[in-house]
């Protein structure tokens, strides 16, 4: 079923000869039957020169991810439950920073917000246009949970679209996140059930 749907609704794709197409589809059929989950994902290609976005607090991703090895989904906890990854609630930050590194200026900044009962006005870095329906949860499910991909390495999957955030302080857009970017990946990963139907993403 999965395969069939992919065939009929490939609303996108590059020109290729009918023969090649047929052969390709044959391969798809067999392969997806044999080892449905055992696929290595082809990461989308493309780079983007994102400008530096000044944030209320220069949140150092590198320290949290690289040095302290905190999992992305620990803070961006909505990613697996919702279409948006979400910004961690201030309470979560304070969970640790009531005690940790309280002497650091940035932490004091944070604490100030906390005491004023005002969440920091974070700026959006990664965004898709409002007419696009993108869900983090489905991508995580297909790319990670369904493939028994080790959760601790989730950052490799996040990196597909967000780049290596572990090496940034304030996150910075390094992938184009435009239609071509999405489409190329969806075509490459058809066998993971990446849909080609326009209405899957356009709303």
């Amino acid at each position: 079923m999965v395969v069939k749907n992919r065939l009929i609704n490939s609303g996108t794709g590059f020109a290729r000869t009918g023969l090649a197409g047929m052969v390709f589809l044959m391969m798809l059929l067999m392969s997806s039957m044999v080892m449905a989950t055992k696929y290595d994902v082809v990461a989308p290609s493309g780079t983007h020169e994102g400008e530096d976005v000044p944030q209320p607090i220069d949140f150092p991703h590198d320290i949290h991810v690289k040095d302290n090895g905190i999992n992305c989904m620990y803070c961006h906890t909505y990613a697996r439950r919702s279409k948006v990854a979400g910004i961690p609630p201030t309470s979560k930050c304070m969970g640790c920073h009531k005690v940790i590194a309280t002497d650091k200026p940035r932490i004091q900044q944070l604490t100030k917000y906390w005491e004023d009962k005002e969440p920091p006005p974070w700026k959006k870095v990664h965004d898709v246009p409002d007419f696009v329906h993108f869900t983090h949860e489905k991508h995580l499910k297909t790319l990670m949970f369904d493939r028994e991909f080790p959760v601790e390495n989730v950052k490799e999957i996040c990196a597909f679209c967000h780049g290596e955030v572990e090496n940034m302080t304030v996150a910075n857009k390094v992938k184009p996140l435009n239609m071509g970017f999405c489409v190329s990946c969806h075509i490459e990963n058809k066998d993971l059930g990446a849909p080609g139907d326009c209405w899957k993403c356009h709303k």
Partner: protein
Amino acid sequence: MSGKMNRRSFLKVMGWSGAGVALTGCDMPSTVTLEEGKEDVVSYLMPEEYVIPGVGVWYASTCTQCAAGCGIHGRVREGRVLKLEGNPDTAVNNGKLCMMGQAGVQGHYNPDRITTPMMRSGGSLEPVSWEKALGVLEEKLGAVSGDRFAWFTGSISGHQSVLLTNHLDAMASNTHYVHEVVNNAVSRTVNQDMLGEANPRLRLDKAKMIVSFGADFMGASQSPVQYAGQYAKFRTNKERGLLVQVESKMSLTGSNADLWLAIKPGTEAVLALGMASLLLNKIKVSDAGIPSDVRTLINDYDISKVARITGVAGDRIQRVSQLLTERSPSLVLAGANVEGQAQGYAATAAIMMLNHILGNVGRTIESAGEFPFPQLMAKQGGTADLVAFSEAATAKKLDVVIFHGSNPVYTAPKSLGLTEAMSNIGFKVAISQFPDETTMAADLVLPVDSYLEDWGTQVPADQAEASAIHVQQPLMEKLNAETKGLGDILLTLLKQRRKDEYAQFEDYYAYLRHAFAAMPMSVKNDAKSNDEFWNAALQTGAIKVDVGVTDLQSTVVSFAAPVMDSSDGLTLVPSPRLGLFDGRHANLPWLQEAPDQISKVVWDSWVEMHPTTGAKMGIGNLDLVKVSSAQGSVTLRVVLLKGMHADAVAIPLGQGHEAHGRYAKGLGVNPLQILDATTDSKTGELAMYSTRVTVKRVGPADSLSMVRMGTGGGDNQVGRKLVGTVPVEQVRRTEGT
């Protein structure tokens, strides 16, 4: 309190992640290049477990768009309420919601909402602070006492109503004017006299046949959604219900009748008596319990006479009467056009009598039972209070009046002279959401929360099988910091009078929590704690109340013989409609743009007239005409419709606002303005349907904003099968229904 803090925190409006507020990028350039860091994304301070950004959450509350008090579910996302649906847990509307309810959000987000308190300085209303406003109010209220102070509201129920009553007797006053244009006041009186209950429970779904004398129960009625739901059952019953509608202007209900009979306006009582005489004298139904004078009255109305007076064919009357006896239990209903006659009481009584004769009482008209919290029950309005109010005002009997949820300046006929009388009232306070006519006439304006921002309880007057108290809770944070909830305002006013008694309640929320806690165990259905009961109530949006079982009495009161108004001219039918209703919703664009169900006109007023009547006066479709009564005249366009009696013209309510925001202002005309001030002797209700008018053509045909019917083809199916119609026999055969 803490519970509340959390609540507010999760009601916080978040960053609108993809809220569709930005354009689609359909404009050029065709691909949106998103700049990073332009949009804010606000995170929660402390999230509730069940609130996930990007996922809509549904909260139960209660609709206050009309007096029906349907339960609603509001879809909240990122702290904004987006869409209202019916609440499946409330029996009144179980899961359904009418167009007015749907448009509730537009009232809430309306650009013309009043955002700050205003006080009249010099000629105009100037913004002031709450402190100032309340200070002045306290002083004014201090200066007045007894009946020189009054509240003027629309139908009101629940704990707000309780507080209001308490405030009245804190002011040692007992003048509370309750005014509704769309009302069933006369029927309530008649029911009270004949059945012993003002609001018995109508069971359309149990009836095998309904004869409705202009009762638009699915349209502008006391509980449209509830009766529409009952109608659906009525139609889908094993034995499909038969609906006969007798009226002089086709209503929404009439347009769904199996048999629609046009009757000469004002002669409904005669028809009822005629049917009674058929039933008693021809078909020999028992006349037990009918007072002798009524019995003799009935005998005067033989079929031929009735047919002559009403203009309804005799054989039709006979057939319908015959069917009524065959299709038992049936239900006979009297509508606003019957109640709103010079002899409204008598006419309504005559019609209700048929239910007695046919033995419908107790079968399709049930007792609503004993509601355990009488103080919470709805104070339903009528027009009698409007008359009383304008008299009091004219007689300079009022010093301070507080208006809420009603717009008398707009709804009162000129003949009542209210507009002038308003100036006789020393100090007029309007607790209002929109700058409507009354609010603009007030000296002090207090901005009130929309019902989607406010706490409260509503008790529907027309309860469904299971009686209930409906809970109203804020679905989002206040749009404007300056507005206050009605309950909170009432509470503040009470604190001004009875500090000691009400000081304990920090705000209306606290009061409600207290009141709920105080409720008897019977309604708490074994909730462990008060909090649990409270949360359950918020979740379901309703508290089921056991009203026990009582029986209705079935008597017939003696009523005056119908007097035919022989004066010439056409009778004006000021028809309310689902949508703009009595004009209160004229500021909701969705409802302005929703075509009138029958004439399909939008954004305007029009006068409906039968083609023959038009032909007689040389008036064509869409001509500009002047409709004049003794009280004045309005000029508007004609729509020729066959769903009219030749002696009647109908002008829909709702338009003709001089204020009430950008969407309402300056559109169409207000037929209420030209009504006579005659009242029904027995109930004092305005006889809204007895005004005689003349129609004169003053201009050529021109376009009226109607759904496109340029070639006139739009009115009929020109042989295509768009809406197929089949006889009921065929359906019985195929579907066995």
